[in-house]
């Protein structure tokens, strides 16, 4: 038991840190010490103080308040993109595995091709064609983002489909939708949840990248990426203003990755070794 607890320390720490950040960002309107857009030019680029815990930026705005407020956008759009790509990818993957034929062939090829395309270039291209804004940001993240889910769902659904209980369900006349929802999807839930967690971290970094380039969130709204970009010219005088948002993205992405690996690992072992001897690490 002692060994078990110690083995999972990193995983649990990640979950706890993540929970704290999610709560802080969710309740940001009540937690923010100052309005995030309030300027105080007399206090430009000030170091941390009791009034401004993380100091202020180049317009005298409170860094901590902006961090909490900006996190709402970064995290929610990453979450939205994760859910969207997860549902789309799972649907395509499962249907490919069940229907096979041209549907499978088409999406497998599309998958191969999208894997080769540089994500950032596609995102730039979409912004060029559609302009900046929420819809193009979401489309830019979704258009290539569904592929990992589809690959995973297809492989797992293929494996589960060869199990006896699926054949049995088919023989007794269960409709395909029943087989998918009752027999296939429950087996995919764990690994897909792990994948979704991992992808959330990557999407959070991508959202920040687009905002950093000025192609994501537009002023006056800000997020962690755009805060970083705004603070960069003043990095020597106020290093905390670039340290803080970057550390926020890094911490969330790292915790999410650790959690996702943990989930994938647990789900993976249960899927592969159903007899109970779950192998750890």
């Amino acid at each position, binding site marked *: 038991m002692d060994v078990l607890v110690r083995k999972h320390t990193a995983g649990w720490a990640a979950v706890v840190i993540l929970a704290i950040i999610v709560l802080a960002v969710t309740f940001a309107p009540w937690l923010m010490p100052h309005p995030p857009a309030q300027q105080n030019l007399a206090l430009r680029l000030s170091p941390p103080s009791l009034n401004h815990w993380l100091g202020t930026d180049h317009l005298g705005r409170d860094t901590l308040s902006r961090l909490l407020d900006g996190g709402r956008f970064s995290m929610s759009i990453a979450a939205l993109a994760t859910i969207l790509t997860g549902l789309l990818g799972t649907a395509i993957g499962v249907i490919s595995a069940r229907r096979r034929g041209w549907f499978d062939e088409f999406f497998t090829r599309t998958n191969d091709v999208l894997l080769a395309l540089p994500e950032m270039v596609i995102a730039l291209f979409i912004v060029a064609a559609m302009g900046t804004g929420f819809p193009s940001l979401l489309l830019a993240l979704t258009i290539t983002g569904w592929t990992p889910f589809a690959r995973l769902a297809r492989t797992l659904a293929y494996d589960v489909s060869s199990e006896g209980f699926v054949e049995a369900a088919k023989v007794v006349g269960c409709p395909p939708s029943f087989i998918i929802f009752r027999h296939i999807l429950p087996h995919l839930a764990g690994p897909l949840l792990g994948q979704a967690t991992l992808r959330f971290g990557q999407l959070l970094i991508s959202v920040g990248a687009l905002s950093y380039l000025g192609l994501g969130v537009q002023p006056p709204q800000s997020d962690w990426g755009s805060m970083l970009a705004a603070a960069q010219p003043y990095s020597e005088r106020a290093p905390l203003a670039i340290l803080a948002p*970057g550390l926020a993205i890094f911490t969330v992405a790292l915790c999410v990755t650790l959690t996702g690996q943990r989930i994938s690992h647990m789900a993976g072992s249960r899927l592969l070794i159903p007899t109970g001897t779950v192998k750890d690490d």
Partner: protein
Amino acid sequence: MISFIARRTAALVVAVLLASIAVFMVPYVTPGDPVRKIIRSRVAGDVVDASSIQALSDSLGLQDPLPVQYLRWLGRFCTGDMGLSHISRTPVVEQVMPALAVTVSLVILALGAAALISLPLGITAALREGRRTDKIITTITQSFIAMPEYWLAPLLVLVFALRLAVLPSAGWTGPASMVLPVATLALRPISYFTSAARSGMIDALAADHVNAARSRGLSYPQAVLRHVVPNGLLPLTTLFAVWFAGLLGGSVIVEVIFAVPGMGRLLYDAVLNSDIPLAQGGVVVVVALAVVVTTAADFVHQLLNPRLGGRLG
């Protein structure tokens, strides 16, 4: 093998053609008059009066059906005529090609640096599996996955360019100016390469033929070098190619931060300035290169791996 090559090549051609159709459509789906936008990318002088626009539109065939216009555009594109930049008013191809050379060298340097660092790390971790060395290497390199380039880069600039003043903070003018961009770009591949090398090596170490080689009297280092390393690192060929394609996109951020005059910077400027011909040329070239490299890696992987039936011909 032949059918494999044929199928992959067909997929490659289709992919690039589909991408080119999407790119061709940009002037038509973005706000504004497509005819004026296209004329601006074909004629160097400023055309304003309606009669000459009409005349040019006729002579350039802009009233033809879109498929006809697409084929004409594709034909010009393939012969290196990508039109004129809306901003600089010079041929796009003259801007794209030098930028491509810069980006390709940046990506190759970053991949080379990543390989030099991560292969020894991954092999060491695998040979010390489960011990402290393995845990330290694995933990540190895995945390790199979560490191955003746009955070690492300003921090590197702050430390090495502003505080220590040992490296330039921007530009692409000599070896010193390449250190920070290459280091930033290499970080994430290091993470993935180390992990892939480690797991590949662990699988290869457990294979029966390694025991067989040992029982034939090969020493442990000989067995590792002859039988484990080649098998364990084989999966990395595909990974390198995938990352080559990935870094072509990933270099956008790095090029913008460090003012490297490459494709990423070019595309970024093109998007900011709504320079449609420049963005079109840049996207098609990058996408074509990425798809070609990935497909080539599939072929190499197929050739190197005898289990996939890799015989030439």
